[in-house]
């Protein structure tokens, strides 16, 4: 028995005649971690969906332990020992931990009868969650678990099916730093047990740290593969985008001289959410907001935009007090808010690009006493702004947002606010889950806005991008402001330290 677990060769796949995979080949050894990187739309997900039985291949060969396999659904794949942990977890919040783990293979009380053996279920679930260091009772509803622990439940589920190969698709996007560490420890342990892992991530540092082998995909082809030591972040980026990106962040000329204050926050508190937040944001300034997940960053953004209540303090926009819980009033004063949940809150996925873009401006775009809308003018307005920020789509009025890549979807969300020409733009994780090239474009858009005199509040989990983009950084922790840092004194360690400081 060779220790080669998975061998993929000559894999091809087209959608509607458009090839998305061309002659993809991968190899994975037992107990090894393969990092798979590539821009959105490069074919990573398609390849994994074929392995996981979600999609059927057009041609090519997938061998598992030397035998050709072709799972046609996730059930088949699981039976073969391939577990696919999707970015959006396949857990059911209304069921308990044990039920989630054994949902498709409940232990039964009498061999042939369909009755769940609760005692065996509990024992086995207990063992499964101990393997992943999850210290909760197996009867806890998943609803009560934080995101990181839900991921562990998902891993326990894979282990309970005797998975030989576990595919992780962007597992850390919704994890806190600590949860990520715990995940990595567990991945290390799985590897030691001889389980093979495919790890997909945009966070290249993690990939370099975690993986034994790395494969880079671009435009449906493997453009680079080899042991980790062959790669550096720069080389990965070059391979992914197919050209050398000499800078990760575009240049911006800082606006000189004192600027008018756009947004002034004084002592804003909401019990259990944020405490005594005060800061000023000037026109022409990018204020970065850093902090761990759960530090109150996104919650603060929602309060500022009037989506959530606050009990004390004051928010002033250009010297006028902003009424609480009134997003419309905030918009009328020139505020815009890009949500961190692009799919859930930022977009109507089935609607067209232009419908999405004009949505917040329908009142402004209407005319006359009856507030008529002129569809062709709306489309034109949408097209203009979409072109300005280079949304990559042919027909903005006919293309559903659902069909766009993550980066392009994010541009649509940005475009819908740009149409209102906001003077204060709150961006909550604007580059989450989008690839390197698209990130660069988003940064450029931000710089253009700031150059035109807008104020930007830039919330991000990635310290590097705040260091690259912000004029000042406000660090938050446990709902409080931990400190301000200005451009000269940015330093990864100091910023992390401030966020973690108790």
């Amino acid at each position, binding site marked *: 028995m060779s220790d080669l677990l998975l061998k993929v060769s000559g894999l091809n796949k087209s959608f509607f005649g458009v090839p998305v995979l061309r002659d993809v080949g991968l190899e994975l050894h037992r107990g090894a971690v393969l990092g798979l990187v590539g821009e959105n739309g490069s074919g990573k997900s398609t390849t994994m969906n074929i392995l996981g039985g979600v999609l059927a291949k057009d041609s090519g060969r997938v061998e598992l332990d030397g035998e050709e396999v072709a799972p046609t659904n996730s059930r088949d794949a699981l039976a073969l020992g391939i577990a696919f942990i999707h970015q959006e977890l396949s857990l*059911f919040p*209304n069921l308990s931990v044990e039920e989630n783990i054994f949902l498709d293979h409940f232990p039964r009380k009498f061999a042939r009868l369909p009755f769940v053996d609760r005692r065996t279920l509990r024992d086995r679930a207990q063992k499964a969650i101990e393997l992943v260091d999850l210290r909760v009772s197996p009867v806890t509803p998943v609803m009560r678990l*934080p995101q990181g622990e839900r991921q562990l439940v998902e891993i326990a589920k894979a282990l309970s099916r005797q998975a030989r190969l576990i595919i992780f698709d962007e597992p850390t996007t919704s994890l806190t730093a600590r949860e990520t560490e715990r995940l990595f420890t567990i991945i290390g342990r799985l590897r030691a047990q001889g389980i093979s892992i495919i790890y997909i991530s945009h966070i290249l540092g993690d990939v370099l740290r975690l993986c034994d082998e790395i494969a880079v995909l671009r435009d449906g082809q493997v453009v680079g593969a080899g042991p980790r030591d062959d790669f550096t972040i720069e080389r990965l980026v070059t391979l992914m985008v197919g050209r050398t990106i000499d800078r990760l962040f575009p240049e911006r000329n800082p606006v000189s001289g004192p600027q008018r204050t756009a947004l002034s926050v004084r002592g804003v508190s909401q019990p259990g959410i944020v405490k005594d937040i005060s800061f000023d944001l000037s026109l022409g300034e990018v204020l970065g907001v850093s902090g761990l*997940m759960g530090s109150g960053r996104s919650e603060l953004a929602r309060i500022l935009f009037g989506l959530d209540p606050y009990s004390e303090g004051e928010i002033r926009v250009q010297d006028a007090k902003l009424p609480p819980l009134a997003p419309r009033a905030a918009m009328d004063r020139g505020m815009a808010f890009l949500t961190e949940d692009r799919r859930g809150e930022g977009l109507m996925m089935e609607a067209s690009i232009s419908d999405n873009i004009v949505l917040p401006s329908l009142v402004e775009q209407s005319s006359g006493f009856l507030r008529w809308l002129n569809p062709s003018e709306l489309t034109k307005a949408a097209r203009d702004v979409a072109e300005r920020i280079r949304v990559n789509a042919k027909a903005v009025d006919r293309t559903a947002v659902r069909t766009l890549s993550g980066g392009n979807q994010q541009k649509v969300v940005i475009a819908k606010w740009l149409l209102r020409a906001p003077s204060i733009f709150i961006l909550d994780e604007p580059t989450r889950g989008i690839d390197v090239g698209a990130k660069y474009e988003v940064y450029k858009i931000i710089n253009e806005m700031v150059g035109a005199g807008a104020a930007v509040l830039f919330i991000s989990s990635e310290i590097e991008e705040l260091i690259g983009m912000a004029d000042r950084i406000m660090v938050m922790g446990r709902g409080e402001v931990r400190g301000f840092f200005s451009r000269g004194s940015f330093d990864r360690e100091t910023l992390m330290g401030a966020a973690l400081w108790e």
Partner: protein
Amino acid sequence: MRKDALSRLDSRTLVLIALRLAPLMLFAILCVAFGLLSDRFISLANFRNILTQSTHVAVMAIGMTFVLLVRGVDLSIGSAMYLVAVTLGLYLPDLPLLVSIPAIILIGVIFGAVNASFITGLRIASFIVTLATLFIGRGFALYLSETRMVFQSDTVQTLGRSSFVGLPWAIWIAASVAAVAWVTLTQTPFGRQIYAVGADPDAAAKAGIRVQAIVFSVFCICGACAAVGALISVSQVGGASATFGYQEEFPVIAAAVLGGTSLFGGRGGVIGSIFGAVLVQTTSNGLVMLNANPYLYPLVNSLIIFVAAWVDGRRRIMTERLEQRKIRVEA
């Protein structure tokens, strides 16, 4: 700050508990109100009466619970009821119950399977499919009965009149349906998978569950329950007029939702639905006791449905908020 967070969560949990208990409170209020307004309402005989009258709604609400759990709805159960009653009266009158009961359950299952094939095969929304079969089913049954009253055999009528160990057969039948349904939902893999499909059909498919098969079977179960409901009801009434089972879907859905089964899927259960059925029947019974204008009944019923749906909606919003806005402290 932690303490604040706790008390804040607590107040929300309290609201959730209050929402959960809302139907119970409604029940108490109705009982007190009817009791004050009519001296005949509060009596053992009347409660026994309410219980017996609510059995067919309870049985069908149990079937509806299965469907609602997977985010579906079955509007055609009233027509299924009528079709079953007509077939039983016209074609199976002389058979012993041990044969005719399985036969009509089979008819109910077939009716449900027709719904299910359109829903799972052609992926049409259950609301639309069952709205169509509501008319088709009743139309077909009216064709069979030529719109005449269909009287039931003595065997069936005896079932409606007689008791076993002091309780009417209707209650025994409903109790056994409830027991089987409860075991199915809570103690079998199938039952737990129903909850999973209701919570997130896409995730369920990814988790290797045969989603379409489960959706198919819940509609069959709902059809079977409609058949049993028809049997109970027709045995009590003695015959099926052209309006038998007409608009019966409303009290049934109301009963399930009042019992805590969510219209958004994934939450609910058998016991709640039985309680909901009793609550709905209590209202009708109370109105009769008060000699209320019969034209008021639909108004009161729709009010109850409204309350049920409102409570369901509020609860969903609250649960989502509880999930979403929890500050996570890194320890």
